[in-house]
């Protein structure tokens, strides 16, 4: 297990390193002169040169990359071109926001989705299954910006119009706000993200359950005379939920960084919107920082997925050394 974990970790580092090269090169290709952007439209050539010297832009690209990587891993993320503030606290704060939203979304979606998926899987072909399947397929079809806007219309404006307690349409939250304070702002984005995940996880769970129900060991368990619920809980689910667990972990990565559209619709200050902002402003250091944090988060989520999978799956847990 330790060897397996270390191997996965090495794999992760390699991926992150390669991705950092991609990110660095991609951001280098972005049009526009960094110093022109920093200093503004009417900066003189003298100032531009000084700026370039300052930022080390004269060095060859590989050198710049190594410098950047060294600074970055050393915790020196530099200053944002556009906000003139340190990037590290900025990104960390957004990361925290993203984490909040991700955690809430998972808290809502995972029990619901797994429950629905198991229910559908155990009742294959029956009405419940068909309802859940069609429902989830339909929800999958709704783009986040459509569901988001509809939810705002419904839970924010319509409720307000009728004088009922309503949820905020805009989810920007105070930076110091605690989880409880920001909770109302989180609900609608979390529901929107849930709708995306729900169908996905539920369908996967369902097919996992169906797949395992076909396995011979389920027949063995049945023919042992075990009560049905024991067969389901002790035999089918532990195996059927393995892929689901992987997907949940990977979804976590997506929730942290992939919610650009949802964050945009609700004006939620998460990592995704920060990246869009950075791209819009051609804010290279910020862009690189967010992208790299994203990649690390994504890769960590994958690592956790692998490890949890291995931990729950004795076939991997006990084959080390072979």
């Amino acid at each position, binding site marked *: 297990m330790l060897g397996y974990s270390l191997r996965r970790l090495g794999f992760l580092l390699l991926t992150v390193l390669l991705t950092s090269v991609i990110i660095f090169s991609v951001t280098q290709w972005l049009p526009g002169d960094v110093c022109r952007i920093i200093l503004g439209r009417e900066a003189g050539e003298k100032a531009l040169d000084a700026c370039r010297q300052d930022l080390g832009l004269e060095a060859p690209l590989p050198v710049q990359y190594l410098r950047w990587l060294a600074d970055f891993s050393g915790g020196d993320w530099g200053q944002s071109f556009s906000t003139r503030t340190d990037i590290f606290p900025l990104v960390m704060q957004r990361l925290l926001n993203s984490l909040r939203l991700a955690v809430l979304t998972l808290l809502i979606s995972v029990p619901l989705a797994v429950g629905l998926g198991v229910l559908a899987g155990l009742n294959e072909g029956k009405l419940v299954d068909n309802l859940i399947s069609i429902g989830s397929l339909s929800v999958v079809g709704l783009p986040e910006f459509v569901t988001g806007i509809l939810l705002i219309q419904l839970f924010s404006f319509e409720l307000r119009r009728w004088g009922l307690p309503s949820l905020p349409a805009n989810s920007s939250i105070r930076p110091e706000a605690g989880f409880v304070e920001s909770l109302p702002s989180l609900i609608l984005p979390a529901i929107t993200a849930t709708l995306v995940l729900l169908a996905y996880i539920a369908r996967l769970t369902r097919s996992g359950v169906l797949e395992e129900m076909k396995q011979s060991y389920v027949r*063995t368990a049945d023919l042992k005379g075990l009560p049905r619920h024991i067969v389901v809980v002790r035999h089918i689910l532990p195996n059927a939920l393995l892929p689901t667990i992987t997907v949940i972990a990977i979804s976590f990565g997506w929730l942290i960084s992939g919610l650009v559209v949802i964050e945009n619709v609700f004006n939620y200050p998460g990592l995704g919107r920060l990246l869009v902002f950075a791209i819009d402003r051609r804010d290279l250091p910020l862009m690189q920082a967010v992208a790299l944090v994203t990649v690390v988060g994504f890769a960590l989520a994958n690592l956790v997925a692998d490890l949890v999978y291995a931990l729950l799956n004795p076939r991997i847990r006990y084959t080390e050394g072979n």
Partner: protein
Amino acid sequence: MINEKTAPALNIKDLCVAYQQEGEWWEAVHEVSLQIQPGEIYGLVGESGSGKTTLALAVLRYLGKNGMIRQGKIELSGVDLVQLQPAEMRKLWGHQMALIPQNPQSSLNPAMRVGDQIAEVYRHTQDMETGEARHKAVEMLREVNIPDPGRVTLSYPHQLSGGMQQRVLIAMALSSNPSLLILDEPTTNLDVTTQATILDLLRSLIEQRQTAALYITHNLAVVAQMCRRAGVLYAGRLVEEAFINELFARPLHPYTQGLLESMPRLGDHKDSVRLRAIEGRAPVFGDIPSGCVFRPRCPIANEICETNPPLSVLPEGRKVRCHRWEVSLNEAGRSHLPDGRSDRNTTEKHQLQPLLSLEGVSVHYPLKRSLREVVRREPKRAVRAVEGMDLKILSGQTLGLVGESGSGKSTLARATLGVVDKTAGTIELLGIQLPDKLSRRTLDTLRKVQSVFQNPEEALNPYLTVGEILQRPMMTLLGWSRQEAIGRVPDLLRAVRLPAMYAERLPTQLSGGEKQRVAIARASAAKPNLLICDEPVSALDVSVQASILNLLEDLQAEHGNSLLFISHDMAVVGFLADTIAVIYLGELVEIAETGDLFKSPYHPYTEALLSAIPGTKVESRRVAAPLVGEIPSPIEKPGGCPFHSRCPRLVGEICKRQPPPWQSQQGSSKRYLCHIPWEELQAQQGDIQGFEISRG
């Protein structure tokens, strides 16, 4: 003992079971009746698709949503199971009836320790405390002869070998002491030596407990060894039922006869025996012939067979469903060849050119080292699949390669073909050294060595027609134009006894045997000098195997090609091969001309292989103990004699330390690798013969 007068433990009457496929119902079991007494093992013999597993699942009332019992009764101790509700059935499962399934690996929950899997039977069906249930589980494992049961309870299924897994399942099935045990091919996927021990175990356990057992298998030999009575199932119908010795001595139904005579017995050889194959293919769902279901394949069918045959009940508890069983009784018998048939034997062996010679061939698959091993600077390890192999195949001759799974026989074949890189040694074809890599071999070399694979389902590209498949080798290897190649296709099909119109079929439209024929046709299309056949019949039904073996033999007679024939089945190899090589853990342990191989002395491993074959008779002066343990990992091979860790005739420390010498004797082509000298071994061993229940 078994008393025919007492009420049967299981009484099946007129059972019809149907399956739904694409909206239509097809009958898989038709009007089957049988009784099993307490303590009796009843064998149910049938090929794939005969409905034997369906019958088992119907008895268990575990047919699934698309299965249905149409009519009939299944009485277990007087209770008609057909009338029970699913919830009531669940109370019978684990108490009254249990299943020992075919595939032990997939029949155990991979995510649960085996101890827990056994203990939960006690906990949930017998309301035992956890601790007590665990204790009982250990006890149960001890009862199925599992060494160190306490440790095994803590293992996960994948950590156990197939034989151990099957023992766990046996323990599980017997834990609730059921009155009916259903065994669905419980040893089919196991090696022959493992199979022997499992069969012994099963028989003694069933005897002890006086359980009624329904033993389902395709293997007649196993039935012969295990059962008191047996029924033969064909296309969902019970066509014959009899006590075992009767059935084997005087099979009445033409199908039963076919089954018995299509398989070579130990000691049969192509020079003296022609196998009687059952022609045609087994009926499939929705294509059941009217009248007698066996009619299209029956050699003695006539007009009367177009009506449903009645079940004739004969004395001595025999039943047969055939209009013409009296006729068939007289027609039966295998065709022995006239003595002069084998003209090949007239040529002296030493005059033949060696076609292929392997010298010191080793194939190692290097293993990736774990981090820990790298840190500790442990040497790189490898799977030593084949080690220092010396073999020759003479022109026009057949070399048989025998060994259990994992013995390296396939790897050797693949190294010869060039799809696996050898680590050491040379492979020469007609005196010319072959390059390792397939891509470096010339087209002519490729042409000279062709291959037939084990699994006919994967052998043919499902998206090309048979015609297209057969043209290719002629176009690529012989450089023919498409037109020329197409012109030859009908000949090729004819050579493998397939109609020319098959050229337009897709592989999915063929049966397994037909696919294998096409594969043989493809391999022989470019007239190879050497045909390598890796278990070409092991995936086929018994009734089809014979025709493939006959075909290989005929083609060889016609083309004079050599054959490297690989099988785990001693009888099949013995039938086809001129020379047999026995390999164990990638090493050659014995080699002899076929006639000499079956004479003692044997290498202890060969002896174990031979005596493990169900129904073999051993005229032994000292019966060897069965093989102990499992085949060791080819990564950590034992030193000294590779077989010492399991050898029942272990001499002593010398076996563990010193590599054994080759033993041979004047007048015999046999050589074997052992510390025990010829005479001494011969004194310990008797000749081993295949089962033969004398007729009449």
